[in-house]
């Protein structure tokens, strides 16, 4: 495991890709030069071929677990069975990083299969702190929490999202996963300033960056950006990513692609583009250090 200075332990500082089922065989067969891989642990909480392949891949690449199922923002208690399954898998695969989302998806025993939005209130903050705390204690390690992409705002939501995330991290000791595409999508959809959002995140607590493509849909004559992870990273998001690297320094970065998954080479190409920007940020960092 490679860690970066005084930051949380994490993945290597380079650009990895989200490993999805159509690429597993090719990754095992061709060993592409990629510093690390991220998977959704929910796809491996079983027996059979998937877990067997992951066991093979983890011997060659650092793995990051990017959970989608803990539902840390649920007013209901955490699903203890799911947390146990995650803990067992973390013990087995020993990922370099574990992350989850600032979101909820379970209410009244129904899992709604979406990272649903939260009103940012003191009550929500208490719920999140309790659940992040519980998860970190079960896993025996700090986790990173990712900012969501949003399509709506609540009438009563007095705490700005980046402040909410910063307070959550300070209270629980978790780190933050800054999804630059999500910031861009949310800012567009809710009329916020993406650059100001980035500036409001506590830089020292960010341990990973996510990049992905989004779709532009029209609803009632208005353009709504949909975080579908179905295309190359948009130029505006690359721009924002440069700003994130300038502010946070070089960080492990991940390219995600989940809809209309392209050939592996396309993902590697996107990761290569991110890697070049990380290399630039390293040089800038060195110069800043030398002064």
């Amino acid at each position: 495991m490679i860690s970066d200075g005084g930051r949380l332990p994490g993945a290597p500082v380079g650009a990895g890709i989200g490993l999805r089922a159509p690429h597993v065989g090719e990754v095992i067969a061709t060993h592409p030069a990629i510093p690390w891989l991220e998977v959704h642990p929910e796809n491996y909480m079983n027996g059979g071929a998937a877990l067997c392949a992951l066991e093979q891949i983890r011997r060659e690449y650092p793995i990051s677990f990017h959970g989608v199922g803990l539902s840390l923002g649920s007013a209901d208690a955490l699903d203890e069975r799911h947390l146990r399954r995650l803990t067992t898998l973390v013990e087995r695969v020993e990922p370099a990083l574990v992350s989850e989302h600032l979101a909820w998806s379970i209410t009244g025993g129904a899992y709604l299969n979406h990272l649903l939005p939260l009103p940012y209130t003191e009550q929500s903050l208490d719920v999140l702190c309790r659940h992040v705390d519980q998860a970190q204690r079960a896993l025996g390690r700090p986790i990173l929490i990712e900012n969501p992409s949003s399509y709506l705002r609540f009438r009563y939501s007095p705490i700005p999202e980046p402040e909410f995330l910063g307070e959550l991290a300070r209270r629980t000791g978790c780190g933050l996963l800054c999804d630059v595409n999500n910031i861009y999508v949310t800012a567009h959809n809710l009329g916020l300033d993406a650059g100001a959002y980035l500036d409001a995140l506590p830089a020292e607590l960010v341990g990973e960056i996510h990049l992905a493509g989004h779709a532009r849909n029209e609803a009632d004559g208005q353009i709504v950006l949909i975080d579908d992870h179905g295309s190359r990273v948009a130029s505006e998001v690359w721009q924002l990513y440069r700003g994130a690297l300038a502010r946070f320094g070089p960080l492990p970065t991940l390219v995600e692609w989940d809809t209309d998954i392209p050939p592996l080479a396309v993902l590697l190409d996107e990761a290569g583009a991110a890697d070049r920007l990380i290399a630039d940020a390293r040089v800038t960092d060195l110069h800043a250090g030398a002064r």
Partner: protein
Amino acid sequence: MPALGDVQAAFRDALLAGDDDSAAAMVLGDGLTPHARLQIYRHHVLTSLTVALKATYPVVCRLVDARFFGYAADRYIRAHPPAGPCLFEYGGAFPEFLAAFEPCRHLRYLPDVARLEWALNTAVHAEDAAPLDPAVLHAVAEEHRPRLVFRLDPSLSLLASRWPIDRIWRVNQPDTDPSLTVDLASGRAHLEVRRIGNDAVFRAIDVATHGFRLALHTGRCLEEAAGVALDIDGAFDLTRALQALFGENLLIDFVLSPSNMEREG
């Protein structure tokens, strides 16, 4: 200020029951209606879960066509949302739902085809299990063996249908000759589904073997399971049947049934 639990219950009503009013009252329009914003979330929930069901039930989808499948899936998802985040576990009640779903009740074989697909899905994702070494049975005295209760391979399912669901499944694979047909009157199916290596497979087995293995798989002891098989076929050979179970690596573990332990105690 609404409590978080109330916000989330209102969202569930909006996403699954189509009752937007409470959630819409909590949400800002920001240039759209709150309903249009909720619709973005609803669309994702329903389409992503439909994709998950389609991946588990490709033959059912092919039999009814994608549009009808989408309609049935929408109804199913709203009535039976997933209980947890591992989507390979989602959809187990879909065969029963289809059996009761009026618009496709005339397709009498459809629920059994769905059961076969669910059994294949279960087999793909079942926990790994090491087979039982036949030698461990030597520790069980001969007179106690009739009371053995076995645990079978967790990937195993035993299905019986009055329809030829194995042939229906085979002729509805993407690479099958589209001119092939199925005679629905061509007979019943007794199938064993399991994982071998990484592949979920099924095969037809004789009725007595099916009865025997199903009885064992549902927790009945060896003597009772043999009785079930003998009722079906008077020529059933228990010794050979047991050898076959070991030979096919289907036995995982065993205990002695409680009545026996009481006798021992």
